[in-house]
């Protein structure tokens, strides 16, 4: 069973994407709070993380991303954002995420599925056990 964590400040999006990820055979935990996210990361192994960069808490999306990378280096990390900001983009690039989703475009059901699959495929090639 593969675990995924979903962090977004919009609950709607969390629910929606949860359904879709479960359809892809992931066990999903969701939260809107960065702090809770960090706790969840500690609890069990994460294989996939979808993190919105704009969180409302003191713990930012980037913090969550870095935490996941530290704790579960093999995890696939995808950053999401409603607004493409070049500065933010660069930072996430430095952080080394596997994908960058732009809302609402990349989050449409069809598009979403395709993209996830593609990213997972790529990672398989990189000696990744999935």
């Amino acid at each position, binding site marked *: 069973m593969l675990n995924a964590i979903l962090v977004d*400040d*919009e609950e*709607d*999006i969390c629910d*929606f994407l949860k359904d879709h990820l479960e359809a892809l055979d992931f066990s999903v935990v969701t939260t809107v709070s960065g702090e809770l996210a960090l706790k969840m990361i500690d609890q069990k192994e994460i294989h996939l993380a979808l993190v919105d960069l*704009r969180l*409302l808490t003191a713990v930012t999306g980037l913090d969550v991303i870095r935490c996941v990378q530290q704790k579960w280096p093999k995890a696939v990390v995808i950053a999401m954002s*409603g*607004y*493409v*900001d070049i500065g933010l983009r660069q930072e996430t690039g430095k952080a080394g995420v596997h994908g960058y989703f732009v*809302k*609402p475009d990349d*989050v*449409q*059901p*069809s598009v979403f599925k395709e993209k996830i699959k593609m990213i997972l495929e790529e990672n398989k090639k990189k000696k990744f056990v999935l």
Partner: protein
Amino acid sequence: MTPIQHFHLSAILTALVNFILVIFVIKRAPATQLKKRFGWYGTSIVFWSFFLWFCSSTLRAHTSDIACQLLHGAAILIPCFFLHFVLVYLNRLDKTEKRALTIAYGSSLIFLMIDLFAPRLLLASVAPKLGFPYYVEPGPLYQYWIFLFAVIVLYGHARLLQGVLSSSGNLRQQRLFFLVGNVLGYLGGIGIFMPVYNLAFFPFPYGAYGVLLFSLVTVYTIIRFRFIEIDVLVKRTIVFAGLFGMAMSIVAIVSGIANGVMGKYFSVPPYVISVGSALIVMLIFDFVRKYLVNITDKFLFQKQFKLSSIMAQASQAIAFVQSLKWLSRRIIAFLVTKCRIKHAMVYICNEQSGRFIRGAIRGYPVDRYPLEELPDNHLVIRYLYESRRPIEIRRLEDLIEKNKSDRMAQTGLQMVLEFMKVCQAQVLIPSFLRRRIDEPGVGKEQAVVREKDDEIILRNILILGEKKSDEQYTDEDLDMFYTLAQESAIAIENARLYDEAVEKTRLLGMINRELADTNEKLQVTQASLIVAEKNATMVGMAQAIGHEVNNPLTTVLMRVDTLYKDKIKRCRDLVEKISAQPQGSTEACQKLVKLTVSMEDDLARASRSAHRINAVVHTLTDILRDTKGEMGALSLRVLFHEAIEATRFSTYEENLAGCEIKLDVASNIMIHGNLEQLLQVFVNLIKNAYEAMDKTKERKIVISGDLDPSDSKRARILLADNGPGIPSEVLPRIWGQGFTTKIRQDNSLGAAGQGQGLFVCKHMIESVHRGAIACESVVGKGTTFIIKLPIADMEVHYA
């Protein structure tokens, strides 16, 4: 001319020349020993030669006899005066010499007594001989006297010869000439005495010419070697006499011509002409004299400067404060031109290094410029500190002579002398100042008397060369120059300060220019900063909008997509299945119901999100529209962005500069309210916070918004600043109408300090919006406004 006539001529000429010489010396030479001695010597020669002439030319025996007595009286004294003069001249009046002199005087005096009271012992009689009407017949003691005469004279000459051999250069020449003159004189004198013993060969009868020669050689020595300090006068008088003679001859010619003309053509009687000429001569005499003085002034420097006028001119010249360079040049120029000095220069003490730098210099040949700089421990400077007086070269030489015993002192003095010679200096004049002005702003007298109150500092050294008139510097001159030097020291100090002031002004000007430049740059930077901030805000706005709109939009799209692509189809399938098999479709029915519930949920969410988007867009676009108090759903976040922007605008140049604003508002909070009013409230609060923090260093406003933990139907907004805070006794009164702590500035716009702000805010929030507003504050830490506003009900549109 017969020999006798020569004899007479030479004698009378000798008397005359010596007489003039003596007059000159007595009247004009400075009152030194030397002058006195020469005076006596010269006078005795005058007497002697005069009476000689008289004695040998008168036709009466008795007169001749008397004259003879007198002439011998003078002759007895001549060698003594000669010896005395020589000793003073050679500066050899020590004990032994004095003893010799006393012996000479003593013995001569005996003979003088004999001559006056018992002349027959010396002079037997006068008798005609050798063509003279009368001449001396020697008495029994005559030869003893001759012997004494010879001894003294030889002794004198021996000393003189010694003097010649022991000196060098100018001095040697001088002494040599005088020696030669004297030798000639006395050799000639022998010729005078020969007739006494009826000897008629050479040097008789031209002997007196020898004496005359002696006088002339003396004159020459005086002029050439500055024997006695009347050489210039002698020079001058000769030149002047010549010119005067020329002028007078012209006058005579003119009047002669006038005479002739008048006489010839106007038949004026001769006495009238003579009177007329005399009148003309009298009238123009003074004019001619003055004219001559003027034109010869350049060559002879007859015009003696009047000390007072010189001083006045000098004071005027140096009173004008200018740069140091200019001033020193002016002083030197003054000295050279007005005071008629050949060359002059000045060493000025440099404040910092203590060394003496050469200032203005004039009259020196270019290749023989003296030292450019003197270190502060230079011998001359130390000597000046000790003596504190002007140093004149000849007086220095005298001093060296006198101090022959003290070796150490002498070496020092010698070196100073050397220095003066190198600089071609006649006089060194120091100028001292009493107090060192190195404390700025010291304008009042020192209240406390310092120990070293007598501290004086050498400021500059004036070096003067020879006077153009070749005269020596008198004591008066030195005093005057010393005073001048003191004055100039003050002027130099002024000039130095002036230079400093000029330099500082220049530096100030430079600094000012740099400041102006920097200021310009700063303004440019400020302008670009404002632009950057505006951009930043816009970016922030764009971010906010992007986020505020995209999130709900995602929901709408996602849900609609699901509905459209998935759930509706399943609905249709199930409906077809049920309609196909109405009986056994319980399961299908149940599934259908579940599906519709899910679809309902999707649609509700989509609807809510769509409305949210609507609210956000309205919040942005309704800014300019007059909402007329309409209440609607507003995105709190966007609202605050707007408020911040509006505040920036209303604070004009301040632009909310220097204040950090942190916005921490959840994006999905929609509040129910009127855009305009809420904006007004928020702007007011932000502005208050900003202005209250006027004196705070790191200004910060934190705006946070979330759901009220105690009431989920309300949003809670916190507006916190880190300003000075509001004291607890003032706190309850801030909502009152007319409360203000602001002083109205002249150019501020808006209701600065009219006390309406918070009162109105309270009304709007509480009455209009049915919210709540409160204030908490800690003095020294900051103030927090707490606002509660109702959440907009997004579901209100569908029952």
